[in-house]
């Protein structure tokens, strides 16, 4: 951006904290921690999700850990409740995460309903969100693309609403842009598309719809070249945000000449 009058892109504010990057990334499915770190840096991500799991007793006590590659002083860690199928397990996982990360309150709540679709169980999600907000957590919540539900989660006090674009890991892209638009128009908290992005254009579309950010894992980690795809996603999210702020032209059925008609020869 060489034009001095061109303002830098506005930051994403979540739970009172500002982030220059609107691309949030997962840390699963990479071949090793080195690739995880390089892809995360290429994405320019400042918020990265992590999963909370039992240690393998007798196996990985001395092994390098994910947090050596992505230390908490460098990134905002977003512990998730992936793999939880009820509110109680999700709340328990968040409490373990808070202890693990020294009182860190930001969590990604996801309560799944079904192993085949990994769609959220919205009833359990609402229940868990209420408990976590009451317990002082800053809850970023994975949900379906239902605008009414998104509103309910915001009313409960979630700090970000994160509707899916398509099933987790599917790469199908944005399946219902009108629902997303409705969620964005109603929301007073950031709306972050979480899950379903397949390639850079999907991320750009999410941002052009006015979403505040995009969270993805498989689209980057599963690409043939994850680091290059991370770079592509960074550009797409920035381009999509800039296009949203710039305001697209209306769609028309017929042509409208770009060159003046006056002064043509002949």
């Amino acid at each position, binding site marked *: 951006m060489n034009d001095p009058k061109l303002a830098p892109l506005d930051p994403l504010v979540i739970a009172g904290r500002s982030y220059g990057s609107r691309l949030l990334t997962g840390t*699963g499915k990479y071949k090793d921690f080195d690739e995880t770190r390089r892809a995360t840096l290429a994405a320019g991500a400042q918020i990265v999700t992590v999963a909370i799991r039992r240690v393998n007793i007798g196996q990985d006590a001395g092994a390098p*850990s994910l947090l050596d590659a992505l230390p908490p002083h460098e990134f905002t860690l977003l512990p998730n409740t992936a793999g939880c199928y009820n509110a109680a397990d999700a709340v328990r996982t968040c*409490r373990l995460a808070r202890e693990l990360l020294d009182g860190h309150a930001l969590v990604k709540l996801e309560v799944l309903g079904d192993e085949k679709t990994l769609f959220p169980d919205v009833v359990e999600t609402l229940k868990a969100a209420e408990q976590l907000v009451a317990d002082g957590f800053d809850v970023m919540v994975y949900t379906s693309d239902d605008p009414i539900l998104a509103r309910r989660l915001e009313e409960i006090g979630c700090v970000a609403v994160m509707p899916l674009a398509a099933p987790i890991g599917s790469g199908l892209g944005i399946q219902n842009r009108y629902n997303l638009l409705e969620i964005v128009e109603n929301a007073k908290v950031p709306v972050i598309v979480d899950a379903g992005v397949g390639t850079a254009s999907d991320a750009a579309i999410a941002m052009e719809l006015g979403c505040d950010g995009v969270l993805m*894992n498989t689209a980057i980690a599963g690409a043939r070249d994850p680091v290059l795809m991370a770079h592509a996603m960074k550009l797409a999210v920035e381009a999509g945000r800039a296009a949203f702020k710039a305001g697209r032209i209306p769609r028309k059925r017929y042509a409208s000449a770009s060159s003046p008609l006056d002064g043509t020869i002949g």
Partner: protein
Amino acid sequence: MQITLNGRPLDVAASTTVAQLLTQAGYAGRRVAVEVNQEIVPRSRHEQHPLAEGDRVEIVHAIGGG
């Protein structure tokens, strides 16, 4: 006495503390969180928290995830 550690039975000396269990398992000083019978035992309490027969202990850490 016997406890359950991460879902598996384990024999430990009577009144072993959480801190001692972590040392035995190789996790002393590592970034982990500990839960005993579904209640968090904060890091500051590891040395004072003795385990009892039948306790269900979970030691967790952060791994890659989306």
